[in-house]
């Protein structure tokens, strides 16, 4: 059908070309890195081959599908039908006669279409599970088309990975019985979008475990998984929001720490190490989704190290407003550690502060032991006098942005520097267990959502270029419209800086030198240098429980 034909996009190579030209105004070349404009990324292009194949064959196939109405409606969503007008205008003025299409009946339709990035989760049977925007019910036809795309390519013994359609990228990710789709017009690379989809999947697995998702769908293919995920949607929304508001977390695969004087952090670490309970595997102190300190059980987590993605997932999870009152006890799965087993998590706010204690154990009956453990931590914190400092750290946050304790970029004392992401790579071996990054609060001119998105996009672009599979770069100096950016990766760190647009190249190097010196000086405060470890009491029953917790599913 014509609508299907309209999705015909430039060949993947072209799409990459377009991306490359976005950097045409970058002042290429620098003494250190030798930046050149990249040719179209052949590696990525290769990856997307399946996508292009699918696309070429699609129009015919779609028209032969019985639910042609649905397919036409959906394809128009993303196909610029009227090249003259802006893409969105073209979309809205798309041909009528789709009164039956529920997505066009959605009152929030205009808003819905103008979103920068959509993320959908659906079951293999095409049953909607999650949509970032709009009501899932209204989108069942759209999701039907996605299933059709996937199963069509599958029937040819292939897997669809991405479609490039003019200014949109569609990325598909199949995870067991779940299909995740991102439809984006941000400049994020397909690999980065895939990373986001993996994070969404991890979040779902953390509430249900992979084994139980598989079992549920093996048992009943058209099961409505939303029933089991009630409440998790908001967590997914917050996760996807954070990608744009705090791009570092997913981009760098690292957690963000609360800056804290080293003696205090170590005292808190020692305190967590002291307050143990049988079966306890991990204790975390966090505030506003950022890490104060975390202590791990030595034997449990040394062989299978704690993945930063798992830790970040926990940090996101305990930030949920549902945990604001009382003490909570809930099963949670760490997908990287073991996607098929549950841990049991005790979550409580300490002393009515926004500081949150998470105790993760293997014993599902250990609530009271964990609660006792919390009281020990509270007493210990009072004895340390840490309560006051932490309240100050947490309180400081309430002013600029919601509960995000951090520091101002002014602290660096490098005029012209607006924002940065810094991830140390030169860490002692045991320290590598906890990849971290630091970054100041977003301040003016990045206070509005629009500006934050622009900055996030720029960081994503630079990241994609530094980590291009075919042609990685070490240094990029990029003059954008409203800011200048410098990204630099060495064996010791990975750094993204955002500078004022008027900075000169020499000036930028000066600023970065200053920044590096500052980070070196503040290192002990910005990062957790020695993550504490403990050994829980060796009780015979604990081992038994540990195995139950780790290796059996629901």
């Amino acid at each position, binding site marked *: 059908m014509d609508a299907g034909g309209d999705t015909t996009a430039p060949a993947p190579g072209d799409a990459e070309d377009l991306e490359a030209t976005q950097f045409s105004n970058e002042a290429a070349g620098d003494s250190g890195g030798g930046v050149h404009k990249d040719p179209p990324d052949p590696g990525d292009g290769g990856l997307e081959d399946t996508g292009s194949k699918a696309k070429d064959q699609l129009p015919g196939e779609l028209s032969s599908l019985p639910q042609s109405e649905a397919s036409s409606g959906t394809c128009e969503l993303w196909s610029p039908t009227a090249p003259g007008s802006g893409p969105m205008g073209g979309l809205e003025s798309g041909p009528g006669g789709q009164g039956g299409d529920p997505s066009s009946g959605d009152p929030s339709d205009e808003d819905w279409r103008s979103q920068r990035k959509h993320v959908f989760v659906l079951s293999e049977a095409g049953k909607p599970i999650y949509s970032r925007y709009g009501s899932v019910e209204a989108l069942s036809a759209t999701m039907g088309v996605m299933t059709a795309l996937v199963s069509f390519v599958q029937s040819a013994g292939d897997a669809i990975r991405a479609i490039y359609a003019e200014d949109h990228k569609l990325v598909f990710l199949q995870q067991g019985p779940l299909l995740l789709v991102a439809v984006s017009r941000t400049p994020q690379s397909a690999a980065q979008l895939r990373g986001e989809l993996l994070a969404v999947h991890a979040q779902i697995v953390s509430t249900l475990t992979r084994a139980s998702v598989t079992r549920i769908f093996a048992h009943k293919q058209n099961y409505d998984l939303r029933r089991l995920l009630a*409440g998790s949607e908001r967590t997914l929304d917050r996760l996807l929001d954070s990608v744009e508001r705090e791009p570092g977390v997913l981009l760098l695969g690292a957690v963000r720490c609360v800056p804290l004087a080293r003696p205090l952090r170590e005292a808190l670490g020692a305190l967590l190490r002291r307050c143990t309970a049988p079966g306890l595997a991990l204790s975390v102190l966090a505030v506003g989704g950022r890490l104060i300190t975390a202590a791990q059980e030595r034997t449990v987590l040394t062989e299978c190290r704690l993945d930063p993605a798992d830790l970040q997932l926990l940090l996101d999870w305990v930030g949920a407003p*549902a*945990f604001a*009152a009382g003490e*909570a006890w*809930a*099963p949670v799965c760490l997908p990287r550690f073991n996607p098929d087993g549950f841990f049991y998590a005790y979550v409580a706010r300490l002393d009515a502060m926004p500081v949150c204690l998470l105790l993760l154990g293997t014993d599902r009956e250990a609530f009271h032991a964990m609660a006792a453990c919390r009281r020990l931590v509270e007493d210990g914190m009072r004895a340390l006098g840490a309560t006051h400092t932490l309240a100050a750290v947490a309180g400081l946050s309430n002013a600029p942005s919601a509960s995000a304790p951090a520091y101002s970029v002014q602290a660096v004392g490098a005029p012209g520097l607006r924002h940065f992401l810094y991830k140390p790579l030169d860490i002692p071996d045991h320290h590598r267990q906890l990849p971290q990054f630091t970054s100041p609060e977003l301040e003016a001119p990045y206070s509005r959502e629009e500006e934050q998105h622009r900055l996030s996009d720029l960081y994503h672009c630079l990241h994609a270029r530094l980590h291009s599979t075919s042609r990685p770069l070490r240094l990029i100096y990029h003059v954008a419209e409203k800011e200048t950016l410098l990204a630099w990766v060495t064996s010791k760190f990975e750094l993204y800086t955002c500078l004022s647009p008027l900075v000169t190249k020499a000036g930028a190097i000066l600023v970065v030198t200053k920044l590096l010196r500052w980070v070196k000086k503040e290192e002990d405060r910005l990062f957790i240098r020695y993550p504490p470890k403990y050994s829980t009491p060796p009780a015979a029953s604990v081992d038994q429980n540990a195995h139950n917790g780790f290796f059996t599913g*629901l």
Partner: protein
Amino acid sequence: MAQVDRALRHGAAPDPPCVFKLVLLGSDSVGKSSLALRYVKDDFRSMLPTVGCAFFTKMVHVGGASLKFEIWDMAGQKYHSVCRLYFRGASSVLLVYDITSKGSFLRAQQWLRDLEAEFLPGEVVVMLIGNKTDLDKERQVTFEEGKEFAESRRLLFAEASAKLNHQVTEAFTAEARELLQREEERVDQTQRGTPRVTLNEGPPRQAKCCAR
């Protein structure tokens, strides 16, 4: 029941009050967490669905006696299988439905059947609560329907509104009074030398009173 018996056996002194485990049951978004939050902290907020189980404690004074409620507030359906274990040791259940949702009322009846499979008759004090009386205009379950059902199954019954703080404390207090009364009867029985065999008594667990 287990810990209550233990509390009575060991705690002849009035000092450590009896601890009763109270479990809130009901469909999603009928207002279980709101009832608990209103009762324990006298607070109300539009809450997100509970994750797992939330835990609160509250001291109650009824007449001359006092008791401590350990309130377990469980997520509606999601953790159904996982939270089954929280039934264990419960002495009191608040079965909550939303008066503006017939479905939640029917579901409450289903929960009751589950409970009956889990417990001996009379082992737990069950109270049926129709929440959200502030939305009286959208009511789908009449007061009489609720009351009739409760009476037919010998449950305590109340309608309440966590939002307006209407009948919330009263409901919990009624539950507490009933618990204490049954406890007295049971003590009388025990003293008359008819030892009760609790089939459901699980493996020995930590005494709740000593946790602190």
